Every structure is written in structure tokens, then in C-alpha cells.
């Protein structure tokens, strides 16, 4: 029934930061504050959307469970140290609560690979609610073949099938809102199961709820051994949980974000597909997880890096699929309206073919961090690292696309510094691992040559700062990693000069920074402040003895998080709106590293 529910009133698009993340470490859903799952790809992060309203508009499908009429969200939170999301609305004199999550641990049991559990409940008076189930599969928003079975509603598209069960049983029809009444003590539970190239497995709603509860216990246990001395621990744990939810468990690959084409410029063309894996993110994740005592996760990232890069070794691809394959060629999806009219919507990513020298530095540094933490590098790992160092030795003088993946290669100073880092860390590892003298001398020579060239061509003595490109005067916020490298001492005027110059010149107000001078990347439109850079600034300040400033800045950055503690890639400095794909692995990894730098900084 639809009585009392206005089906003609379109739901306005929610702000990016209004979305919460549900995940099972294989795929993820984004849920708006009105209870609508507006994004879910199946069977994996990089699969096709089952619910795509976020970017594909109303025709792309949604699964909304919430109040029947507009209502105010009075509380929205993750249950502490879990991935279960709770949204409570004030409806008249009563309250309606939606508790939801995805079941992550399905191994060894007869359970569907993707299982979403959603429960509506009220503790006070009866509340009218609505279930709007409208699955549309793929880029063409295909409608399903529908079968109403005794235990559930089944929707099919060839090898993909979805079942929606409920308790009490509801008469749900895809595409038609169903009005229900939720009474105190009688919650309504909905269970969505997805089967891809396998039979559907029906799970009773009561059992599904129990599974979700068991999952919560597992997440709590996972967080128990995270370093208790961490500053801002609650926020760091949320970021670590987010990183883990965005890590594809079958291959241990950290996906950059679960979405495509959330715009860096609302209404503009800067819309990219981030449902792939950047070795840089995995490398930062290795250090982050190692430093909080999560060696298994760190080992998983490193294993993925080595396994995934195997096909193209010794060259390190800029990005890879979840299974380490070539990323599909970038293409535009016709007919998709985009988020807030931001078109084109893109699938695939053309940055995959770029030469990015900095990647070698991140990966080698991750291997060094792993070895330094007392873990032995296998001979294959060491062979791979040697191969990466050899590539840097051969190619460091070539222009590259840099960390920001500009489409015109240039002599990026940050890339050169990361090339230096690759060789320096490889040489350090070689102190305890076998290396031919000739190879060692070649690396040392290249490392020293990079340092000499960067100091002459990449440094502006007038401003006392390293610059973005050789011969330019522009700055690059990626240079904030300088204090981590030790190419210059952390007390060096070069390091302090660079940090201060970036802070002054690239400031977007408060703690926010642009990654480079806005509007100088060849794309039309503008972009927001780049959030990982702000956390790198915190880290740089903490590493250079300015702990108090670092703490203040970190605190301010926490105020910019979404209400659920999530971050996109960018933030509009004028409105505070999150921009870009969401939530973003790099931002959360940078947050963790910033907190670790504060932890390790001397307090005096």
C-alpha cells in the first residue's frame, strides 16, 4: 500500500557527507540519512551497480527504509567499534530507528556472499514507515524478472539474483513504495541476499539479525588490540575500521573508494572512477596498520602489492584492479545524470597507463617499514624491491605524471624525492639482505645524483622552499612528506621553509590546503581542498617538533569529518561540503598516520 506516502515527490540528492558506509570487505553500500541505499555494486567493489541512484539518478535504483514522511534525524552513529549503523528519526511524538549492516564473515557457513540486514524499530508509539525497493542492475538500469516466493521476493538478471525477505512478511513490489507500521516491541527486519553465479541462499530474518550481532562482536574484538595510547583513538579506530571495510578480503587489496564519479567540482567534469587499487594507498596502509599493532593487515597489503604487481614487474603500475589485473580503459557512461549534474560519469581509469615515479618510493618504504618492524622479507619480496630500485635507477630522470596524475608529464620534485626514498630504503634493506656490490654502487650513485639535482633544480632559494616542478615557482602539498624521508634533516631550514611556504601559499582557510595552486592542472573548473594534504601537514608539524600546532590542526580537521567520522577526498573550503569519491582510503590512511606522528612526537 502507498496511502499517505507521496510517491511523486522526488528525494533531493543528499550531501556526500550525509552518506554512511556499510561494508563486508567485499563490497560496500552507501546509505543516505533518509535510509536510502543509493549505491551498491555487486558482487565486488568494482562490480556493476545494483542500486545506483547516487550517480545514476532515480532510474538507477534505490533501497530505502525509513519514515513514511519527512522526518528529522535525531541521532546517527555507528555502534561503538563496529560497522553497524544506527539512524534514529523523530516522527511526531515517537522515534523510529533503523539499524543496519552487512554480514562480513560468511566463510565456512552456508550463507550468501553479500547479505544486508536492516531492522526498523520503535520504543514509543507506532510509527508509519516506508520500504522502497527498486533494484536496477548495471549501467543500463535493467529491471529484474520478479518472482514472489514463499520465503522472499526474488529478482533476477541472468547470473545475478537478489532476494528480499522480511519478518513480519511484507508485500513488497519492486519500484513501488510499501507503507508499513512499526510498533513498539515488534521490529521489522529486512534481509537482502545477493547471489552471483551461485544459487540464492535464503536466510531467515531472525538468523540474519543474529549473524549481524556476531559480526559486531568480531569487529569489537578486532579493535580491542589497537594501541590504547593513540591520541584521538575513537577517530583513529573509525578510520582503521573504514580502511578495513574498504579492503577486499579475497585478495587483501585496499580499494581507493567504493564509488565512481562523485565530483571533485560539483557540476563539473572532474569525475573519476576510484573503485581500483593504488599501490600508494596500500603502502601507506602497511605503515598505518603496522604502527597500531595490526601486522596481519600490513602483511596482507604487502602480499597484495607483490602479487598484484607481478605481471608488470619490475615496472610498478599506477593502479590495478582488485585482483591485480589491468584497469579497464576509461569510458563515459551515456545517460547517467551524475551527482548534482556532474557529468560525464566515468568507468575505468586512464591513469593506469601513467608513469608515476613516486609509487616506487611508497612501496619500497612500506617494505622497509615491514622489515624494520622485525618481519623477514622473503626472497621474492626482496627480489621485487631490487627490481623497483633498478627501475628508479634507470628512469628517475624521465618526466612523470606525479602523484596528482596530471596528464602532461613533467619533472615533479615530489616524484624525484620519492625516487630518492625508494633507493635510500632499498639500500637500508640491503644492509640485512644480500645485494651485489655493483648494484649497491649503482643505487648509491643514483640516490646521490637525485639529491643533488633536486637541491639545485627543485629548490627555490628565494622562498626557501622546494617547488612543484623543476624551474617553477609553484608549490605542491605532497612535499609535506619531506620530514619523513630524511633527505634533509627535520631541523633543516629547507624542511621548515617548505612546510611554511606550503601552509601560506596553498592554504584554503584554516587547516585546509589545496594540493597545488588551484586551476593549474589543465582541467576546466576548480576543485576543493585536498584532505590528505591537511593530515600530511599535521604529520609534518609533529615530525618537526611543532606538536602543539599539529594537535590543534588535527582537532580542527576532525571537525570537518562527516557526522559519521568519514572523509571524502576533498572539501569545498567555502561550504564545507565533501567532494570526490567517498569514503576515501587515502584520507583515512593519512589521518591514521597523522595521529601516529602526534603520538610519537615529543611533548615538550
Amino acid at each position, binding site marked *: 500500500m502507498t496511502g499517505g506516502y507521496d510517491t511523486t515527490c522526488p528525494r533531493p540528492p543528499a550531501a556526500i557527507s550525509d552518506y554512511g558506509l556499510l561494508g563486508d570487505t567485499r563490497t560496500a553500500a552507501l546509505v543516505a540519512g533518509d535510509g536510502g541505499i543509493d549505491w551498491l555494486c555487486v558482487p565486488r567493489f568494482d562490480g556493476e551497480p545494483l542500486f545506483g541512484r547516487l550517480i545514476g539518478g532515480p532510474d538507477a535504483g534505490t533501497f530505502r527504509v525509513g519514515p513514511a514522511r519527512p522526518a528529522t534525524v535525531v541521532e546517527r552513529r555507528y555502534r561503538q567499534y563496529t560497522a553497524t549503523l544506527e539512524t534514529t528519526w523523530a516522527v511526531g511524538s515517537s522515534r523510529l530507528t533503523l539499524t543496519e549492516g552487512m554480514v562480513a*564473515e560468511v*566463510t565456512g557457513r552456508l550463507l550468501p556472499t553479500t547479505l544486508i540486514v536492516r531492522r526498523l524499530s520503535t520504543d514509543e508509539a507506532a510509527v508509519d514507515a516506508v520500504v522502497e525497493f527498486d533494484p536496477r542492475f548495471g549501467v543500463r538500469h535493467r529491471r529484474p524478472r520478479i518472482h514472489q516466493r514463499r520465503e522472499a521476493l526474488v529478482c533476477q538478471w541472468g547470473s545475478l539474483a537478489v532476494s528480499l525477505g522480511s519478518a513480519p512478511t511484507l508485500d513488497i513490489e519492486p519500484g513501488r513504495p510499501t507503507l508499513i507500521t512499526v510498533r513498539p516491541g515488534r521490529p521489522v527486519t529486512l534481509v537482502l541476499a545477493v547471489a552471483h553465479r551461485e544459487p540464492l541462499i535464503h536466510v531467515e530474518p531472525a538468523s540474519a539479525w543474529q549473524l549481524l550481532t556476531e559480526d559486531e562482536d568480531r569487529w569489537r574484538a578486532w579493535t580491542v588490540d589497537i594501541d590504547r595510547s593513540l591520541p584521538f583513538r575513537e577517530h583513529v579506530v573509525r578510520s582503521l575500521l573504514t580502511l578495513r571495510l574498504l579492503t577486499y578480503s579475497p585478495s*587483501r587489496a585496499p580499494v581507493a573508494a567504493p564509488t565512481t564519479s562523485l565530483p571533485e567540482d560539483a557540476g563539473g567534469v572532474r569525475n573519476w572512477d576510484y573503485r581500483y587499487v593504488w599501490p600508494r594507498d596500500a603502502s601507506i596502509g602497511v605503515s598505518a596498520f603496522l604502527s597500531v599493532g595490526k601486522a596481519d593487515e600490513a602483511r596482507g597489503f604487502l602480499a597484495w602489492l607483490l602479487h598484484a604487481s607481478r605481471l608488470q614487474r619490475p615496472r610498478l603500475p599506477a593502479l590495478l584492479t582488485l585482483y*591485480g589485473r589491468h584497469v579497464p580503459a576509461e569510458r563515459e557512461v551515456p545517460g547517467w545524470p551524475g551527482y548534482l549534474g556532474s557529468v560525464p560519469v566515468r568507468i575505468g581509469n586512464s591513469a593506469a597507463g601513467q608513469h608515476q615515479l613516486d609509487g616506487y618510493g611508497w612501496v619500497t618504504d612500506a617494505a622497509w617499514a615491514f622489515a624494520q618492524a622485525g618481519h623477514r622479507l622473503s626472497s621474492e619480496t626482496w627480489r621485487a624491491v631490487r627490481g623497483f630500485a633498478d627501475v628508479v635507477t634507470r628512469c628517475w630522470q624521465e618526466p612523470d605524471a606525479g602523484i596528482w596524475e596530471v596528464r602532461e608529464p613533467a619533472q615533479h620534485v615530489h616524484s624525484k624525492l620519492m625516487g630518492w626514498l625508494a633507493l635510500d630504503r632499498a639500500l637500508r634493506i640491503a644492509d640485512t639482505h644480500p645485494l651485489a656490490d655493483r648494484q649497491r654502487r649503482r643505487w648509491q650513485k643514483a640516490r646521490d645524483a637525485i639529491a643533488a639535482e633536486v637541491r639545485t633544480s627543485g629548490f627555490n632559494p628565494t622562498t626557501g622552499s622546494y617547488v612543484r616542478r623543476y624551474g617553477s615557482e609553484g608549490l605542491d602539498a605532497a612535499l609535506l612528506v619531506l620530514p619523513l624521508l630524511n633527505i634533509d634533516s627535520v631541523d633543516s631550514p629547507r624542511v621548515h621553509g617548505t612546510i611554511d611556504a606550503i601552509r601560506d601559499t596553498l592554504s584554503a582557510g584554516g587547516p585546509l590546503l589545496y594540493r597545488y595552486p588551484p586551476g593549474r592542472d589543465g582541467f576546466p573548473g576548480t576543485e576543493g581542498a585536498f584532505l590528505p594534504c591537511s593530515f600530511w601537514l599535521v604529520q609534518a608539524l609533529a615530525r618537526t617538533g611543532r606538536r602543539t600546532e599539529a594537535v590543534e590542526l588535527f582537532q580542527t580537521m576532525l571537525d570537518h569529518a562527516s557526522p559519521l567520522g568519514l572523509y571524502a577526498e576533498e572539501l569545498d573550503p567555502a561550504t564545507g561540503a565533501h567532494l570526490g569519491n567517498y569514503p576515501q582510503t587515502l584520507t583515512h590512511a593519512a589521518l591514521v598516520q597523522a595521529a601516529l606522528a602526534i603520538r610519537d612526537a615529543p611533548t615538550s
Partner: protein
Amino acid sequence: MDWAGWALFGLVATAVLTAVLITAQLAGLTRLDFPLVLGTLVTEDPDRARVVGFFMHLCAGQGFALGYAATFALLHRATWWIGALLGTIHVGVALTLLLPLLPGVHPRMASQRAGPASRAVLEPPGLFAVNYGIQTPAVVAVVHVLYGVVLGLLLQAK
């Protein structure tokens, strides 16, 4: 049956298969590494796993060679093309049955259903083992057909 031929040429054919597979790996065509996959059944150290796995792979190769030798004996013919045909059947079974089923029994191989508690270090190969590189089915087909051709040429149908 050609028992002496089986004892020697089974090893030769498996060595050829392994050598070509390693060459394909070095050429960046596939990430499939049979010694590593088999060796990690008993140890998680990749270096030791490769050594142990190499010998396990030789044993497995001997086992399959027994089937080839028996088939040649039954057909009273041993030619390179019958070997290639058997190799084609062999690779069909390996890609559609053996490799996709492996995550169910391999203690260190994740499945497509792996969750956060998984400590498995090896990726699941997936159907036709394409998770190990899109060219993996072609590489695996070539090495197994080669294995069959070697046995067809060297074994006798007695």
C-alpha cells in the same frame, strides 16, 4: 604399459611444463605459480613453499603421466597429437574444476567469500584462473598441451 618410459618421461614432461610456465611468469603473462600454490599447502614461507611445491608438482605430474601412459596403452597408439588431445582435456579439467575448487581445501588460499577473519595469503584463482592474469588460461592451456605432446612423443604404446 610403458612403465620405464612413464618413470622417466613423466618427470621430463613435468619439467618442461614447469620451465615454460616460469618463462611465461617472467614474461609477465601470468601470476600462476604451481610450485608456490602446492607448496603453501604445507608451509607459509614462500621460499620453502616453492622448493616443497616443486617436488609436489613433480609427483602430481607423475600421477597425471600415469593416466596418459594408460590411455596410450589402451589405444595401442602414442602420438604427439593424441598427447596434445589428452593435454587439452587435462587443461579443461584443471581450469574449470581443479583450480576453482582449490580454495575449498587449500588452507592458505582465500575464497571469493573471504571475510575480515581470513588469514589466507593466496588469492583465489577464480574460473579459468583469470584472477592470476587475463592470459592465464591461454598459458595454462599451452603448457598442458605441451606436456601431452612431450608424453605422446616419448612414451610407447605397449
